């Protein structure tokens, strides 16, 4: 099969689209950045692609709440196209703001009759934080994380605190193998801030939907593609590639 085409969704305030494009190019995909307005005009555009990425940034300024306005747009105007896309065995990835968007649009965890079951809200530190963290992957059936174990990636957000409406729901997600990424320390152990940089319940850093084909995560894999992006390369030497590249390569190889 030919290299998959990746739609990187631009929107006012999205700002990690260029480096996400670079990451997918490195991984052998054919990424294209497309504005959400084009997609709204022509929802069928989506069907020409195999992967949809909602990149990081501050869509619509994160006014109201992080990712909320773009999430609303997806839910109101593109829900049919998105469902069709997902049901066609295709992949959807949301990074940082994109995770907030996917979650609040109900694409990761569908709401029940009482509303949404989980959200991403203000870090318990009370402010935006840019720092490198370790992740423990539990890939389950999530193709993006195939073969991933421990990842070292940066987070950079103010609203990454994953909270469930009821405590039992977190358990449910765990049992369904939907919690695919957790914050850990360098040795793989959970810990308080700054190991868990935002206070997320269960140290949740990334979740996937029931199918595993929709993934949202707060850390930025596209910021660790080149070895020079690592904060300690002058100490430890240059690696072959950054930890994050695997996620993009997995997405590309899923279609081979």
């Amino acid at each position, binding site marked *: 099969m030919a290299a998959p085409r990746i739609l990187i969704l631009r929107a006012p305030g999205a700002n990690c689209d260029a480096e996400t494009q670079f990451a997918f190019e490195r991984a052998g995909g054919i990424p294209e950045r497309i504005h959400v307005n084009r997609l709204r005009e022509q929802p069928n555009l989506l069907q020409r692609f195999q992967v949809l990425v909602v990149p990081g940034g501050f869509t619509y300024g994160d006014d109201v709440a992080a990712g909320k306005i773009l999430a609303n*747009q997806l839910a109101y105007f593109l829900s049919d196209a998105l469902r069709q896309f997902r049901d066609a065995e295709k992949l959807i990835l949301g990074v940082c703001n994109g995770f907030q968007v996917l979650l609040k649009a109900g694409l990761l965890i569908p709401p029940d009759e009482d509303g949404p079951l989980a959200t991403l809200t203000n870090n318990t530190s009370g402010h935006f934080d840019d720092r490198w963290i370790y992740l423990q992957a539990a890939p389950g059936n999530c193709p993006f994380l195939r073969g991933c174990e421990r990842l070292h990636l940066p987070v950079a957000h103010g609203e990454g605190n994953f909270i469930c409406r009821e405590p039992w729901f977190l358990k449910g997600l765990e049992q369904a193998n939907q919690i695919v990424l957790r914050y850990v320390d360098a040795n793989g152990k959970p810990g308080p801030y700054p190991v868990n940089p935002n206070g997320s319940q269960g140290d949740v850093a990334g979740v996937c939907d029931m199918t595993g084909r929709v993934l949202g995560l707060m850390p930025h894999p596209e910021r660790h593609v080149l070895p020079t992006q690592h904060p300690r390369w002058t100490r430890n030497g240059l690696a072959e590639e950054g930890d994050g590249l695997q996620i993009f390569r997995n997405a590309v190889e899923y279609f081979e």
Partner: protein
Amino acid sequence: MLWEVEIEAKGRDAERDRVRDEYDLLTSSRRGTELVRRSTRGYLLEGELGEPQARRLMDDLLADPVVERAHLTEIVDPPAHVDSTAYTVLLKPGVMDPVAQSVLDTAHGLSVPLAAVRTFRRYEVNPAADGALKALHKVLANDAIEQIVVGPLSPEHLGIGTPYTFRLIAVPLRELDNAGLERLSRDGQLSLSLDEMKTIQAHFQALGRDPTDVELETLAQTWSEHCSHKTLKGTIDFNGRRIDNLLKETIFGATQELRKRFGADDWCVSVFEDNAGVVRFTDEYHVCFKVETHNHPSAIEPYGGANTGLGGVIRDPMGTGLGAKPICNTDVFCFAPPDTLPESLPPGVLHPMKVMKGVVAGVRDYGNRMGIPTVNGAVCFDPRYLGNPLVYCGTVGLIPVSRCTKEPQAGDLIVTVGGRTGRDGIHGATFSSLQLTAESEQVSGGAVQIGNAIAEKKLLDVVLQARDRNLYHAITDCGAGGFSSAVGEMGEKLGALVALEKAPLKYEGLSYTEIWISESQERMILAVPRDKWDELRALCASEDVEATAIGTFEATGRLRLSYQGNQVADLEMKFVHDGRPNVVRKATWRAGIVDTPPVAGVVIPPARQEDFNETLRKVLSSLNVCSKEWIVRQYDHEVQGGSVIKPLVGVHDDGPGDAAVVMPVLGSNMGLAIGCGLNPCLGDFDPYAMAAAAIDEAVRNVVAVGADPKRIAILDNFCWGNTNRPEVLGSLVRAAEACRDIALAYGTPFISGKDSLNNEYHSGDRHITIPPTLLISALGQVPDVRRCVTMDLKEAGNALFLLGITRNEMGGSHYNAACGIAGGNVPQVDPSLAPRVFEKLHAAMQRGLLRSCHDLSEGGLAVAVAEMAFAGEIGADLKLGASESDAVALFSESPTRFLIEVMPANVAAVQVCFDDVPLVPIGQTCREPRLRIAGRNGEWIVWASLADLKEAWQKPLRW
């Protein structure tokens, strides 16, 4: 109908905690916790929407039911019930409210008939708080942009502005005498001197008419210090010597001479011409850099001031050539110490802690939203920044080689793109509105604005696409002076005709003059050929950016403005730009005229009695030296993916890197190092030495991480007191002369600069003048980022060398400050040695001979080695040479020095490499996590655990 959505957090009430902490800080009390019972936030929604629609907006958009509880109520007049414990804080009418704007736009997208939105915060105040209300008000709201409504809201209307009826205003000045002219300038807040007023008077007398108000405003704006830099470009009588144009003779002059010296290899592209200075980078791209200040607005409203300060400087690269892509930001702040006693604050001055938090948040929210990494900065504390904090923001841009020049053509449309025009930044503008309190509200249009980063991000997105599609001939940003400045500058050689009523407005009621001089943010002006206009308009519309043609560039040599068909201005471009009379100022400088009297030699306590462990901890804990991690982490310094050397480095990513390195073109391995130098402590001794040291520090920083010393461009930003006082101007002349001398010696051209004069605070009999503060920013090119070096010690068993000469230069040092010692010798740069040191260091790095490298700056050798050791969690043993004093060896701040770490196998090669510059072996690294330093008599005078030193360094600003 008017609906109120009130939202309460289910978990921690963070805003209540903020109010408590700030109240306690300001009043040195512990009452904050009982004053406010809870806080909420919310929205006022006005429009023809019924309850179901309002509820749907609330549930689907405004509140997050997982973590918040929301209530919907209809606001009726008279109110359903009166609750006088509710304090509602609203932005004043006309102040930018990005959240309200987003809600309005989103609602329209969902076809909800919303007409107006305002956001609010609300506090339930303890009725027993009576005596505390004055202080509490200050904590709840900032009067400059916000208002407090006590009790119920009863608005009838949220819209602002009233219709404007055109009336041409002429200003009769032809008959005025000197006193009359001066009064006119003062009352109209024109800030024009008598000389300038007389020149204008003579011009209009010759024309046989009076100027209109908008003509006079145009001249005042174009001739302002801010836009024309008339002091530094004017004539200065310096101790009897005539300087025709200080900038030309010093800073520009040095660059011109260097460019001649570079010859065919001249890598400057456009310097001191465009909105940012441009230099060559690769075959495909040039880079540009600009640094600006936003001091006065930040003093009044720290968040908004810093916010719009950064927003403004980002538009400079965007408006350079045909538009550069911003690739990183810098920020440098000067504050009074955050532990300043609240009782000591002069009237109207915000507490420095509040200023600092607001400024950091303002930079954070704009830079992060724009998706531009903030990679380098500095913070400097001095009590003299109390009423007058300094906020420097800089932006580096990347621009394709073919997009570096612009030239508007006759017939091009004048197009405004981006934000709408309001009364923002119009001095003294006030207007009444139909308002929330049923009382007339005054808007302080003045200096205070809030930015809307997403408006600017959208603007950037379309500008870069339009640039690549060749849709315009020229671009510039609307900064100070608004359209007047942007159109005036762009049309200087051509002429322009503008129909002011075409400009899209935020609200009704602006006069033609207000439209012309408004400083509303997030706007740019393009010169668009007529055959590209449709394509440009369609492109902008496709990404929800407003673009409006407001006039035409025309080859008339005149600036003509009209409003609804009436001519309101007709000025000769030549008079606007070249008509200003030359400014003549007096300047004096005499060695010895300083605030702190210099003392010859050094006063140092007897070494035997000094506990250097304690002194080292004290210096590490001083505010200028200590860790700024609290600030750095709030900035996204990695967005765009180009980060190579981060601001924080080391085994725990928390050591103080010398400079940041970014890779603007991903995967290319060509890098840019960004650093800065600023040392106002030295200015009290000699502004010449201060400027030289600042350049040395900026250059040192970027060379320390791997920049090629032959490819370093520098920028100057002067922040000075009132230069009408000869001694203040004299100190500036001294600093400018150092800039010339050192730039020439180092071969580092100045490519851009800016000055901010009159940084003083006056109230009653209290006058505070800032120390003369020169920021030097450096943009160094890194030929191969894989050769970059960081400051953290790497492994045990390596040799440490001190590069450079340590002299008895304790004047203005952080050691002296920590020990309460005045005087001393001010550090002097050696202009013949320094360039050789930089060159050799770079050569050693290119050969991969260095494991770590740290420049010696604040706190000298002792602080540098401590920082290297705790950043790398590798110990070090040092042995000081036979200097005259251990204190000098440890803490002198002599410039052009580095501490380098070398693996044993490379020691011989390093010694050869540095054969003709001073390099002394000074110690080695070790596994034990401690720092030991032996004094000149061989005894350990420092013996401290790294954890202990690190704690001292991290604690003060770990907020």
